[in-house]
C-alpha cells in the first residue's frame, strides 16, 4: 500500500480557487512532488458549507451526492483541501449511507444525469481531506523522508477548523482516533516545533462574519493572539475558510481584540511544500495579508 502511487479524484472547493488562490496552487506543487496524482473534479458543485443544508437539507444532500457520484465515476476515492468541505460533505454522506430508500430517492434525480452515488460497504470509497490522506495513506515516515529543508526551529501552531474535528462520530474518529492530532504529527514530521495554545481546535468565527462581525472577529483575534503569546512563528490550517478569518481579516480582528497581531497563517500544503524545498514565492505567500516575512527569515537561516 505504502509504495502504491496514490491517485485521487480531487475536489479543490470554491474558496481555494476564489479568495485563497494560493492554496490551490500550493496543493498542485505538493501533489507533484509527493507523487500524488490529482484528477480534478472540474464539473463538481459547491458543498453548500452547511448553509444550503440549513435552507433545504435534501438539496445539500443531492448536490453532494452528485459530487460523490462524479468521483465514483472516475473509479477513485476523493480528496478535498478544505475542512468545511470535509464536514459538510461528511454530514451528507452520513445521511445518504444510513438509509437505502433515502439514497434511492436522491439517486432518482442523479440517474437522469447518468450518475449514481453508491454506498461503499467496506469504506473502500472515501472522501478525505489532504491532512487525513497525508497521514493515513501517504504516511508520516514517507513524508519525513521527502523533507529537504527541515522546518527546524520554526514554531508552528496548528489550527484545524471545526468541521474536521467535530462531530467525532460522523468524522470517522472511531476508526481513526488520532485525526485531531494529525496536524501536530505533520508539523513534527516536517522538522518543525509544535506550539500548544488554546485555540487549535476552536472556531475561527468565519461562519458568522456577515451576521455578527464582532463575535466572528473576536474569535479569530483571540486565537491569533493566544498563539502569539505562546510563542508561535506561524499558524497552519487545512481550512481556507479559517484562513480567510485568521489571515485576510486579521487586521480587522486586531481592532476588535484591541491588540497588535501580525502572525503568518499558512495553508497546510504551503507548510509541507516549504519543507520540501519550495520557495515562498512559488506558494503564493506574497498574497497573504499577514506578512509571512518572519517565517521566510526563519527558514532562510536553515540551508535548503
Amino acid at each position: 500500500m505504502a509504495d502504491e502511487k496514490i491517485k485521487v479524484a480531487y475536489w479543490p472547493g470554491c474558496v481555494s480557487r476564489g479568495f485563497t488562490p494560493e492554496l490551490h496552487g500550493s496543493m498542485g506543487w505538493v501533489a507533484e512532488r509527493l507523487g500524488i496524482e490529482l484528477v480534478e473534479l472540474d464539473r463538481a458543485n459547491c458543498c453548500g458549507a452547511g448553509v444550503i443544508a440549513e435552507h433545504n437539507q435534501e438539496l445539500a444532500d443531492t448536490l453532494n451526492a452528485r459530487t460523490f457520484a462524479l468521483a465514483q465515476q472516475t473509479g477513485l476515492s476523493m480528496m478535498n483541501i478544505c475542512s468545511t468541505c470535509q464536514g459538510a460533505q461528511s454530514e451528507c454522506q452520513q445521511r445518504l449511507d444510513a438509509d437505502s430508500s433515502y439514497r434511492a430517492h436522491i439517486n432518482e434525480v442523479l440517474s437522469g444525469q447518468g450518475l449514481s452515488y453508491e454506498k461503499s460497504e467496506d469504506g473502500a470509497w472515501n472522501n478525505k481531506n489532504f491532512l487525513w490522506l497525508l497521514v493515513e495513506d501517504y504516511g508520516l515516515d514517507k513524508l519525513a523522508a521527502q523533507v529537504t529543508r527541515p522546518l527546524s526551529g520554526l514554531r508552528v501552531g496548528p489550527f484545524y477548523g471545526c468541521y474536521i474535528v467535530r462531530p467525532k462520530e460522523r468524522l470517522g474518529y472511531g476508526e481513526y482516533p488520532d485525526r485531531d492530532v494529525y496536524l501536530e504529527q505533520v508539523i513534527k514530521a516536517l522538522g518543525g516545533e509544535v506550539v500548544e495554545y488554546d485555540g487549535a481546535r476552536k472556531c475561527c468565527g468565519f461562519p458568522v462574519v456577515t451576521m455578527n462581525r464582532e463575535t466572528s472577529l473576536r474569535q479569530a483575534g483571540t486565537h491569533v493572539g493566544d498563539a502569539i503569546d505562546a510563542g508561535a512563528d506561524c499558524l497552519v490550517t487545512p481550512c481556507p475558510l479559517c484562513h480567510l478569518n485568521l489571515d485576510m481579516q486579521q487586521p480587522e480582528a486586531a481592532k476588535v481584540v484591541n491588540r497588535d497581531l501580525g502572525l503568518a497563517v499558512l495553508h497546510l500544503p504551503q507548510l509541507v511544500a516549504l519543507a520540501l524545498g519550495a520557495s515562498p514565492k512559488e506558494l503564493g505567500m506574497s498574497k497573504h495579508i499577514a506578512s509571512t516575512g518572519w517565517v521566510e527569515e526563519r527558514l532562510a537561516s536553515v540551508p535548503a
Partner: protein
Amino acid sequence: MAEYTIKVRRFLPESGEGPFWEEFGVELDPSLSVLDGLLQAKDRDDGSLAVRCSCRAAICGSCGMKINGQSGLGCKTQIGEAQELADKKASALGEAVENVPIVIEPMGNMPVIKDLVTDMESTHWTKIRRVTPWLLPHGEAPEREYIVEPESMIDITQSMACIQCGACVSSCLSMEADPDFIGPAALAKAYRFVGDPRDAETVERLHDLANDPHGIYDCTHCFSCVDACPKDVAPMDQIMRLRRRAGEEGIEDPNSGHDHEIAFVKIIEKKGTLDEAMLVQESYAPGLKGKLKPSKRGLIETIKSLPTIIRALRRRKVGPMKAIPGTHHKLPGDAMNDVRAIYKHAEEHNEEFNLYIKGDEGELAEIEAEEAREDAAEATATPSEETPNG
C-alpha cells in the same frame, strides 16, 4: 484496578485566592467513571473537594464538567477512556506518555461557585427562561389532555431528550466570544416548542429569535455542543431547524441571517460554485431578485468590509475581476443543467432525513442480528430448565 492522576482546577471562594491546580492519585477500574475518581479523592484525600452529583447514571444532569478540555458528564465518561485521551494529547505534543494527568475543570461560560460547582442560574437558567420555555397553546386548554397525532411529536423528541446539564453551554464557542448569545441549550429548548403542534405562538417565537442579534444567527456552527451533549440532542441541529423554519416563514431579520442563506442558495443555483464577492454583496444588499436594496445595516457592514477587500486587491490575493460581484464563472452548461435539475427536485420534496429518529439501517440490522444471536444462545442454554410455578 489501575492508578490514575487527576488534576483538578480548584477554587475556594473563602480563601480569597484565585483558582489553582491540585493533583490527586486515585485507584479504580478503568470502566468506572471520572466522577467515581473524584468521589474517591474526596473520600480519601480531601473532603472539601466540591463536585455536584446525584444519580451517577447520566440521568440527572448534575455533574457537568470539562474533562481534558471536553465538556460532558463526569459520570458518563470512563476514566480509562479519559486517560487514553490525555495520553494521546501528550504524545502529539511530544511529551512523555507516563503518568499523564487527566485534567478536570469546572464547566465553561459560567461563574464558578466552588471547585467544580458552577452557577447554573446566572447563565444557563437565565437563558432558558429567555425563550419562554413553556407551551403557549391555542385558546382555552381542553378539559382533558391535548390530542395530537403521535407522528407530529416525533420531530421534537430529540430536543425533549435534554436533561439541562449545561454541557453544551460550557462548550459553546460563540458564547465564549459573545456572552449574550442565547446559546445551544436554550435554543434547543425553543425548538422543542416551535416544533410542537400544540403551540400557537410558533411564528412569534421565530421572529423573536431571528431578530435578536444574539439569537439563532449568532451560532457559529462549530459542532462543540453536538459533541458535548450526553443525550444526543445535537443542539446545533435544532438551531439549524429554527433557521430553516424562520426562512420558511420568510422572516427578514436585521442580522442578514436570512439574506445570507438565500444569497448562498441562489448563487449556487446560478453558478454551481461560490461567487464570494457576490455572497458578501447579496448578504448585505439583496438584489438578485430585483434592484439593490441595501438596508442601513447593510450599508454600514459593506463599508466596514471595504478595507479587507482593498488589502486583498493590493496583495493581488484577489484580482479586480474576482472582487466584483457577479463576474465569477459558471460551471459548464451541462453541469449547470444538472445543478438546476437537482434544485427543482429538492425544492419539490424538501425532505429532512433525521438520523436521530430514523437511525442507520446498517447499525439497526447489526443490533437485530445481535439480539437474534442472544435469543438463540439463551434458547439452547436453557432447553428444559423451566421450573414449574410453585
